[in-house]
């Protein structure tokens, strides 16, 4: 795994936090220690040996959603502060300091292969030799299996040759909490199962899984032997091929699409979901104030809904306030769906909405 780029970290530490208005953590917490440059300063002092590692220091460095909101305004084009903080946090683990709030979930990861206690997988598993492998992800499986159920029902409807596997967590939470060895083990388990499946494509509705598969598995020595596709893009393909035929939804009011931050900023995928929604006759789309690449995180990034639940909920409430009044919120990320719902919003997964229109 990459080491901290000390030059980049220091330049961030010397900046007056020109990105802090786009950092949901800084704005919801109102606390200097967790503002972007505040974390960079703290990390610099820790790595310089000017401060001893402590739970309090690790807790501050862990208060990052990995949403890349800060990059929207960052004058340092090569800096990804979340990656630097991730690398810095591994030094805490090496020093024997762990995030107490992550301990029970980390325990589950080690024991069961999922932070939630039981491993992921769709409600209706389908083993076999299908061409498309649907990967549910443990957050979707634990919190809202209905979305995966809707996705697979759509696959059935469209006649997709698909299969599922006995999933392990992708490794995103382990990476988040500094468990490099564990992340590699989980990646190896998944890689072996995915390779053995013989599938030609992997489709998942979880941006965190996609991020980990595409950006981390190679460096963890577990590069996947097949392309990883987002579910919105895949559904759009099915609609365009005429294999799914959305109908008008009776009584449906306007909807707004919440762009998951990883999908929008790292994968630059914001058009496909909107085009897909446009195929549902009569559905009107009302844009949120900050949308597409300028989206704001729901508060669930980097597992903050588990380790900083109050902060995470506060971020969700702030995000909910940015949506057009009266519009139903649709998203394509199990973290966003769960966290915005916890913040008091009525939120649908894109697959669920599409299933209502197609099935």
């Amino acid at each position, binding site marked *: 795994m990459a080491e901290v780029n000390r030059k980049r970290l220091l330049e961030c530490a*010397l900046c007056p936090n020109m990105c802090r208005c786009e950092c949901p953590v800084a704005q919801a917490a109102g606390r200097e220690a967790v503002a972007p440059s505040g974390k960079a300063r703290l990390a610099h002092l820790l790595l310089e040996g000017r401060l001893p590692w402590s739970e309090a220091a690790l807790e501050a460095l862990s208060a990052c959603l990995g949403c890349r909101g800060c990059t929207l305004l960052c004058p340092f084009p090569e800096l990804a502060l979340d990656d630097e903080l991730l690398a810095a946090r591994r030094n805490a683990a090496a020093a024997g300091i762990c995030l107490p709030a992550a301990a029970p979930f980390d325990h589950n990861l080690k024991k069961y292969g999922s932070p939630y206690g039981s491993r992921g997988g769709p409600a209706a598993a389908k083993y076999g030799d299908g061409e498309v492998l649907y990967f549910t992800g443990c957050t979707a499986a634990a919190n809202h299996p209905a979305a995966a159920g809707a996705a697979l029902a759509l696959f059935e409807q469209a006649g997709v040759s698909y299969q599922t596997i006995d999933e392990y967590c992708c490794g995103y939470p382990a990476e988040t909490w500094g468990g490099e060895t564990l992340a590699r083990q989980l990646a190896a388990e998944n890689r072996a199962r995915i390779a053995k499946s013989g599938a030609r494509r992997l489709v998942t509705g979880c941006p965190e899984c996609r991020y980990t598969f595409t950006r981390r598995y190679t460096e963890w020595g577990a590069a996947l032997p097949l392309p990883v596709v987002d579910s919105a893009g895949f559904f759009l393909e099915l609609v365009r091929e005429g294999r799914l035929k959305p109908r008008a939804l009776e009584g449906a009011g306007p909807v707004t699409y919440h762009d998951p931050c990883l999908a929008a900023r790292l994968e630059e995928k914001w058009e496909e979901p909107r085009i897909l929604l446009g195929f549902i006759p009569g559905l009107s789309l009302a844009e949120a104030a900050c949308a597409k690449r300028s989206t704001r995180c729901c508060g669930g990034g980097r597992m903050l809904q588990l380790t900083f639940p109050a902060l995470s909920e506060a971020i969700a409430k702030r995000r909910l306030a940015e949506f057009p009044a009266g519009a139903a919120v649709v998203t394509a990320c199990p973290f966003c769906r769960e966290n915005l719902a916890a913040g008091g919003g009525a939120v649908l997964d894109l697959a669920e909405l599409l299933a209502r229109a197609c099935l």
Partner: protein
Amino acid sequence: MLDFSEMMLQERQLLSSESSELAGKLRVIAGEQGVSASPVDRLATCRDYWPMGSLWFLEGKAPALPDLVVWPADTAQVAAVLALAGEHGVPVTPYGEGSGALGGAIPLRGGIVLDLKRMNQVRELDGENLMVTVECGLNGALYEEHLNRRGFTGGHIPQSIRCSTVGGWLACRAAGQFSSRYGKIEDMVVALEAVLPDGTVFSGRRVPRTATGPRLDHLFIGSEGALGVITAATLRIWPCPEERSLLSFAFAGLEEGLEAARLIIRAGARPAVVRLYDYAETGHHFPEVKEAGGRCMLILLIEGDRRLAAAETQMAREAALAHGGVDTGCGPVEHWLERRFNISLASKLFRQGAVVDTIEVSSTWTGAAPLYRAMQEAMLAVEGTALASGHYSHVYPEGAALYMTLCGFPPGEKADYYKRIWSAAMETCLSLGGAISHHHGIGLHRGLWMEQEHGGAGLEALRRVKQALDPGAIMNPGKLGLEEALEWRK
């Protein structure tokens, strides 16, 4: 490891037992999550964006640690915290987002840092009467975003807008980049809500003007937390402009550009942005504009009602061309709009061992060009100075603000160099009749020249006001030059 001995300016700290007792009482007021004694939070609020803070940070040192950080949720909590601090004689340093450039937020004598960022609500937007009431801890960019979404602008766009709060703007008497049209922060205040050092809450009335004695709320604008805590403000707003016009002209020298700017303002036009760069900064910012080579660039941004904007655009163009300005089109203004918040070069230079800072002053039109030349000469004469450049950034019928940028690689102690170059700049400014600050305020460092700025009688009057409102001297001690900042004055 960081410890008390490496705090460069710390004059005092609470005993551990005193801090624990106070923390318990503060938790009753602000809740468990509203108080921290953690070194992580204390370290995070030990400084602002004063360059000495960055220079010490690079050496693993810090200016001064607070004993406790408190996050009040509302005005009542602020009042209770101040009353409690007064009872205990504990200093209180208000804190926004730490973008101040003069050390104004450093808790020199420890005590409580009052972090106001959780007071961040827009209480009321009154579009008919064009005013908004907003809490002090709201981030500036989010304040402007809130207004823009509803069809209004606050008109206050400082370079720090993304990393400063509304309360911070008021406390340091700020000016934004668009101030030549919309005014400075003091021009925008309809009313303030502030907490006096004894915990009394003062609220101004939301009316367009009064003739009911001195404007009490104006006493707090620029008070930098030394007289009390500004907790909310009712500010003027404007409908979003329907027209925007971008113009730029390159002049043979600063004098020609200044004369054009003076006549534009004198005629009654009010471009939102008027910026005139010296040769060095023109070359640095606009290298791609061939006609600007060896010239001084003037950029103008005019906005508002389309009829007024059209008339002002014509007036500005005529004045600029009449003084030899070469029309360089809208490109330079677009470039400025795109780059105006990018201060990454300062981080890079600090990292490479440089001392970097900016010094903003003001003068009449008559003194504007001589002041620039004299300050530049004085700053370049300080050993180690690599660059002293400038631009005029705000204009008035009476004169303009001059914004100098310095970069030095000092041969010896950086703090010594820092004091020497500032002394050269400030003494020169004062000797030519300039004001020592246009919009960054006084903070810690500029307090060294407050007596020369105000005169003995003027500063004494300010001290009496401070004594009357804050007899226990708990509010942000050592700032505004009202009392000695012992370690820094040494």
